[in-house]
């Protein structure tokens, strides 16, 4: 619960980090807590699903790994299953691509 509370509080503080003015921040916070009743929807369903899945996965992973080390998990998992997961991640990285200009993503 404390972890989820921390996550929620960080979500609130991000608003002040990114908003250009306190007025903008107030409007965003109103929307976040359901008080912007006149506002029009702007987020597509697919975006909400993507963010929901990713955030839930990250939070769940952090929670499951809170008293484990990655090396312990890998040692206890069948090698072929770990290989399958690594292959899936590497394949996802390849087909997600990046722009041609960001092929090597570092700046001189």
């Amino acid at each position, binding site marked *: 619960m404390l972890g989820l509370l921390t996550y929620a509080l960080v979500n609130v503080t991000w608003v002040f980090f990114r908003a250009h003015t306190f007025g903008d921040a107030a409007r965003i916070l109103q929307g976040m807590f359901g008080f912007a009743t006149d506002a029009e929807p702007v987020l*597509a369903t697919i975006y909400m699903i993507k963010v929901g899945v990713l955030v839930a996965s990250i939070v769940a992973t952090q929670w499951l790994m809170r008293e484990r080390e990655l*090396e312990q998990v890998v*040692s206890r998992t069948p090698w072929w299953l770990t290989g399958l997961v690594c292959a899936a991640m590497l394949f996802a990285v390849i087909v997600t691509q990046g722009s*041609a200009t960001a092929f090597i993503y570092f700046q*001189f």
Partner: protein
Amino acid sequence: MSNSGKWTEDVTVREIPTTRLVAMGWLVFLLVTAGVIAWELQMRSIGLVAGDLDDSKAHWAVERRKIAAGDYDDVVVIGSSRILFDTNLDVWKEMTGRRPIQLALAGTNPRPFLTDFAANPDFKGLLVVGVTPDIFFGDWLGIGLFAGVLDYWKDQSPSERFGHQAGLFLSRHLAFLDSSYTLTALVDQVNLPNRGEIVRPYLDVWKVWETTDDRQTFLWRGIEDNEHLREHARLAWGPFAGKPMDEAAIARACKEAADAVKKIRARGGEVVFVRSPSAGLYYENELHSAPRARTWDRLLKETGAFGINFEDYPGMRGLDVPEWSHLSRESAVKFTRAYVGVLAQDVPWLSSRLRAKDGA
């Protein structure tokens, strides 16, 4: 096995997991190779091709630098996607002996580029400006993909240049390398019910172009061959509300263009405007939102420049515009032949040079 979760533990020392790492490595290699091959075959089956280099700021910068180096035939094309897709550079070369530098950018207002060439004292060539009415006569500068390109080509870092060349090498061999068919782009193409009036990202523009060397660009063959993709492309250009364009914005556009044309002509260059074909609901929308008398005719009057509007030439009407905004590859060849023929005859800057070349 070390204990976990204790702050006093030396976390700089990590144990290597006891598992079959070599076997795992081989499994990953085989699965990823099989997956990438399958993905490549799937992408080729829907119309992606190896050699489609995808457009980018870096691709544009390569062409722009040719002008800075003086390594070109004194003809430059700027504009939005219509003149980009509808111009065949080989036909230009065949008809005039000059291969233009293609600097038009999809979804981008060409007026900053016109102003940039006007401010360039070294440019004394022929500037062909494609006019897409709802872009040219408005204040919108363009899509984020090419934002800042006028500075980018000067500031591009060595790593970005190298990255671009490495990307080009891979794109010549792998069809799946396309910014419109990344995993995230494909997820965004899933059509789910949305709240309120939301239509994006499903109705964002998907892949419509195919780009080769020298930024020779065509309407993607997938649009010509696939009815679903063609219908989607048509919808993506909407909504066709027919709202008249702002008069003040049109006035600004014409004034900027007039100032630029004057400067370029003063040093011996020339500017011509070309209005490519459009069709269907898009064309009908343009008739209401940017009627010719308020936009195109006004532009030519205030600039004093020569203009080619497809509506005025029989050879440019009735061409194939599959998704209402861009010509098919075959029709782009015909359109280029038609408009270059008109330029070669009616624009003194070009006709005099062609006569000189023939007489030489």
